């Protein structure tokens, strides 16, 4: 019955399971080595400098945090909007939200100048800072989603499920609003300082989160040689298409409004026309790979599970491209201190800033994904997270 979803444990193929753990562990090890290297030698050994202060680790970290809040949507559609097909997927959605948030925050913390002072960040709050507010939202997110997960998996606490589902839903909206506002509140830089950043990040999170969910769900079904119900697949792929379309719409509105302000035309020209790697990453990465191609794959007739997974992978790649354009591209464009003047100095004033990330920065970023991956793989192994819509079919295949 749809109203009483069932879940199965996946204890099959122990060898392959340990192989997955080893693969994830290797990425974690590489990230840890990079972390030690950066903290020992200082950030001088990275590609970041006094102009590009946030680099590749932030691209991965912010992506993971934004996707973490988005992946929880699957649970919200079940608990808040009462859709049974999504309710069966709520535990996996909650788990992925926690895992990806942990991965993102780990990367963010590892890239601090003084990661040893993490406790300071948790005990000293400047309440005017949107960054401090984000830290509170992240901590609350862990607590609320964990409690929500317990009510989903322990039927005796099921009575609290609806309330916590609502709380988690509103909390995640507030969290992504705050994450988008990290950039929205930067008045000095042309690329940021827009109120549109917050809602745009929310719609991005819908797309990235659902894409991540579909990839993991697809992997789990393939692992257990199961086939996802076609009706459910069709609904989820259409939802992803709506989110991808909405992301493209917000991106277009963001740049169109920006073009309307004369003082921002130079930045738009840089990003859309002659910004080199940033222009290419925007058009090819964010728009084509992350937007148009997935839409074509999702809307072409006869969508298969594999095609939906490919579309989801493209959305994730497009998401990383978007973060690169937003975070690094925004810093690469020269800060306009004296509008109307050509400017030069020993501090790279007036020039487009170069950024060549080193391998360790990628290692740190992939380490965040690996942490989320390991948490998911272990949790799925020991607890019942696999969404199962037709229990009888599963039993027959066993």
């Amino acid at each position, binding site marked *: 019955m749809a109203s009483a979803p069932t879940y199965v444990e996946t204890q099959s193929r122990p060898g392959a399971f340990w192989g997955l753990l080893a693969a994830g562990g290797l990425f974690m090890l590489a990230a840890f080595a990079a972390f030690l290297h950066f903290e020992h030698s200082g*950030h001088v050994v990275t590609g970041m400098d006094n*102009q590009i202060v946030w680099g590749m680790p932030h691209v991965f970290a912010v992506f993971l945090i934004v996707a973490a809040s988005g992946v929880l949507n699957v649970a919200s559609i079940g608990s808040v909007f009462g859709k049974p097909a999504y309710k069966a997927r709520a535990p996996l959605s909650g788990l992925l939200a926690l895992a990806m948030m942990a991965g993102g925050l780990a990367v963010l913390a590892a890239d*601090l100048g003084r990661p040893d002072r993490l406790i300071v960040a948790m005990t000293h709050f400047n309440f005017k800072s949107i960054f401090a507010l984000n830290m509170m939202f992240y901590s609350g997110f862990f607590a609320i989603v964990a409690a929500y997960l317990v009510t989903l998996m322990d039927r005796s606490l099921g009575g609290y499920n609806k309330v916590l589902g609502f709380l988690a839903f509103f909390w995640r909206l507030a969290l992504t609003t705050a994450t988008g506002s990290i950039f929205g509140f930067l008045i000095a830089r042309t690329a940021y300082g827009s109120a549109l950043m917050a809602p745009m990040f929310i719609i991005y999170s819908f797309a990235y989160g659902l894409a991540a969910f579909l990839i993991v769900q697809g992997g789990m079904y393939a692992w257990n040689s199961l086939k996802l119900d076609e009706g459910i697949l069709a609904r989820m792929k259409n939802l992803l298409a709506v989110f991808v379309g909405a992301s493209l719409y917000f991106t277009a509105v963001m740049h169109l409004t920006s073009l309307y302000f004369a003082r921002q035309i130079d930045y738009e020209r840089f990003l859309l026309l002659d910004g080199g790697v940033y222009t290419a990453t925007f058009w090819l990465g964010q728009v084509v790979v992350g937007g148009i191609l997935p839409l074509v794959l999702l809307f072409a007739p006869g969508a298969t599970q594999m095609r939906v997974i490919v579309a989801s992978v493209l959305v994730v790649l497009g998401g990383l491209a978007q973060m690169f354009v937003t975070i690094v591209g925004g810093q690469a464009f020269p800060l306009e201190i004296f509008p109307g003047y050509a400017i030069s100095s020993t501090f790279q004033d007036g020039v487009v800033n170069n950024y060549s990330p080193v391998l360790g920065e990628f290692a740190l970023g992939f380490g965040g994904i690996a942490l989320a991956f390991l948490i998911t793989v272990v949790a799925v192994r020991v607890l019942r997270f696999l969404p199962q819509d037709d229990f009888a079919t599963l039993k027959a295949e066993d």
Partner: protein
Amino acid sequence: MSENNSRRGFLATSAAALAGLTLAPGIRLVEIAAAKPDHEPVTAKVRWGMLIDTTRCQSGCTECVSACGKENGLSEVTKPRTDAQWIRKIDLKELKTGRALSLPMMCQHCAHPPCVDVCPTGASFKRADGIVLVDRHICIGCRYCMMACPYKARSFVHEPLTDQNPEVPRGQGCVESCTLCVHRVDRGGTPACVEACAAAGGGNGGAMLFGDLNDPESAIAKRIREVKTTQVRADLKLDLGVRYEGI
């Protein structure tokens, strides 16, 4: 015996008197030695500021930059991408007319500093007298302040440090910027850059003027009353402590 007693009494009285004398002058000595005693908080009655006359600032002259480096223990800039630069010389050329000018750029010590607003831990802070500083004990090195500063005034310490000036403690992994030579100002002095600029100007004085913007009788307040001065990116309405003349 009575003689002994009186001697003891004399010694006790003398010791007490001596103790009293030492304590009282002790306090006075501190007051005399420092313009602002360490135990007294800074006050908002003062707003430290700087006025830079760009018509007197020479392109190619970097006396202020060198003096800052020497005073604050910053190494010579050999790696422009990652070395800390608390003050830098900027050359400007107006796009329409070609008018050229040169000026030093550093922390503008805003009354409403964006770096202080965004700092998650409160490490970036503004003193009551308007000087914007970083508390190196609680800076976690997140670099959000560098994203927020409209003047690129801040540097991140990218490498381990050696040969620090004990009066200006710095630390790898923290963000830092011009302190307006707060350690000198608190003793009644002026920032090193201002002093060096004045020395370079010979008898004519320098291009930099330091003083209390709140004191109508100060040289800086008088000058700002007399000539047209500019706050950089005035559109942001940050109420800057550093003003420019001739832009």
